[in-house]
């Protein structure tokens, strides 16, 4: 086990809102992310788990400055990511990268694998000659398990798994310090998921990367991450170490997620308590007052509607629930 590394990223109070324009009505404000805070140490993997409307993708996009954050700070390497502009912002791109959910969509359909992978080199190391770029691309392709046969291939000639490998090669060619993975395995076949999952873990160990692994697939998160953040309607419900979360989840929503996840074993599935979560996820445009989860929570009391629960320490985890101490962990 590696020694505890110094803190790499500290996010405080991150909020992201989108202005929606509908014909004939005044613009509505969609709060995708509300007051999210977490830290990430070097070499660590943080999982961000949530369903649709949870804001998990918006967090990554805001930190990567693809969408504007409405408030908060993100301290990375002594700088606030959210305040960077111009040249420092551009420099930051060397250190933070992203893998997308749909690998084929994330590749330019007209560029070969070699061109795609070497593009970051063109931008950040313009002094390199074409031959040097090509050599680096080849090395990178090998590192992700593709032979140089794949260099001239276009995206439509690649399978999902191969395309994701190319995307990983592109993301890692500049040796970033932090890699965001937005549902990197979701669109892949089962047998390929595990290949790519292993590849990510292996590269992380080799390059000393920190990762933020965003997914709705709890089992994958359990495999890949050492800490997990659970989001619902843009707010943090629980932030805990992996083992604590999966064996003793404290927040009712986390428990509902764990109970709903399909178990690939019919005997276990039958033995599971049948407490399915009723209701639907409320619209992010009209979130419930107080605790956003209260409309579906079996343990909701009056206080839950009146006061937003703060994220506080219960046991070894951080939980945003007024009744966290009373509810037995799942």
């Amino acid at each position, binding site marked *: 086990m590696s020694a505890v590394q110094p803190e790499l990223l500290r996010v405080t109070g991150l909020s992201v809102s989108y202005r929606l324009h509908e014909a004939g009505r005044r613009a509505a404000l969609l709060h995708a992310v509300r007051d999210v805070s977490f830290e990430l140490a070097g070499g660590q993997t943080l999982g961000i788990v949530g369903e649709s409307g949870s804001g998990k993708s918006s967090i990554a996009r805001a930190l990567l400055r693809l969408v504007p954050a409405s408030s908060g700070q993100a301290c990375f390497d002594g700088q606030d990511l959210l305040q960077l502009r111009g040249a420092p912002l551009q420099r930051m791109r060397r250190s933070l990268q992203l893998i997308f959910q749909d690998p084929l969509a994330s590749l330019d359909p007209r560029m070969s694998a070699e061109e795609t992978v070497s593009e970051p080199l063109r931008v950040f190391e313009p002094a390199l000659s074409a031959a040097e770029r090509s050599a680096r691309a080849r090395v990178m392709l090998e590192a992700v398990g593709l032979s140089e046969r794949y260099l001239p291939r276009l995206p439509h000639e690649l399978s999902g798994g191969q395309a994701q490998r190319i995307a990983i090669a592109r993301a890692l060619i500049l040796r970033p310090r932090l890699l965001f993975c937005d549902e990197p395995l979701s669109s892949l*076949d089962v047998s390929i998921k595990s290949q790519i999952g292993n590849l990510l873990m292996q590269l992380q160990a080799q390059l000393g990367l920190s990762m933020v692994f965003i997914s709705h697939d709890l089992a994958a998160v359990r495999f890949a991450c050492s800490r997990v953040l659970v989001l619902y309607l843009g707010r943090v419900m629980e932030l805990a170490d992996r083992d604590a979360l999966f064996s003793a989840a404290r927040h009712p929503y986390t428990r509902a997620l764990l109970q709903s996840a399909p178990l690939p074993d019919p005997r276990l599935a039958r033995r599971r308590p049948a407490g399915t979560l009723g209701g639907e996820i409320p619209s992010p445009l009209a979130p419930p007052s107080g605790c956003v989860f209260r409309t579906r929570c079996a343990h909701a009391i009056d206080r839950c509607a009146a006061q937003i629960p703060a994220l506080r320490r219960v046991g070894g985890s951080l939980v945003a629930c007024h009744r966290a101490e009373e509810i037995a962990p799942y």
Partner: protein
Amino acid sequence: MNSPSSAEPLLQLQDVSVAYRTASGAAVPVVRGVNLQLAPGEILGLAGESGSGKTQLLLSIIGLNGQHAQLTGSVRYRGQELLGRPIAELNRVRGARIATVFQDPATALNPYLPIGRQLSEVLRFHGGVPGRLARERACELLEAVQVADPQRRLQQYPHELSGGMRQRVVIAMALMASPEILLADEPTTALDVTVQSQILRLLLQLRERHGIAMVLVSHDMGVIAGLADRVAVMYAGRIVEQAGIDALFEQPQHPYSEALQRCVPSLAGPLPQRLPSIPGAPPDPAALAPGCAFAPRCAYRLALCEQRLPELREAGPGHWKACHYDQPLGRLRGELT
């Protein structure tokens, strides 16, 4: 629980094959010689990854494969042959006796018509039921699929409903004419996990209360494990293993089924350093080698496997496998190479 009876099967597929004609004239086989049975009230799972042919097989039951598909074999519903029947006759079966639920509720519903219209349309087409009666039935069914406030929902348009709600409406639409069989292709893949488990429980309830048989296609073994009585695992257009749900998970007989189960990370239990994975990738249906299609990726492969196509044979009571390897599969440690 309804167990498969030995009486006349509801649906019987014999040697069904589907091939697509390409521009060059060659025929690409996507389903190859499938034999399947569905008993009344039974839930049959079709498991496999993309390219396995499971969706094409499902579509072939009611002839929805498209104009470039060539179907051979026999598909019998209650003894009646469905394959090759003219569209007009098939339409009397589609929706009425055999209904479908597909993956994306957004594309299954007409965005320009209110829900009530779309639901009643099914009955007006399949029996000339007058509007008022059809609407009553629509209301009943919306309640049966656990849609709150059904009267109000009838007036709403699809875009006013959430994803889970839309899928419930699609299921209600499928049930309107009281079908005997429901064909579902990845019915919950596009939904959130908490909504997914609601819909799966709903499907189970429908089987308990109304005895509807189902063919459920999914790439997610967890979904199949939670719902199916029997499972057929498909690879490269063929069924490689068929068994009762418990038997398949307890003791998979085919290397592919075993490998698939081991690939999936678990929510509890020990965590491996590396996830077991299957090397290589599914084969291109246009370039299938002779012999077993899984052989290049199989940890148990024999010389025979690449030469001769294994036939589906009984490996235990109600448990079929298409594999030359005769010994019971041991759980190999670490990664399958």
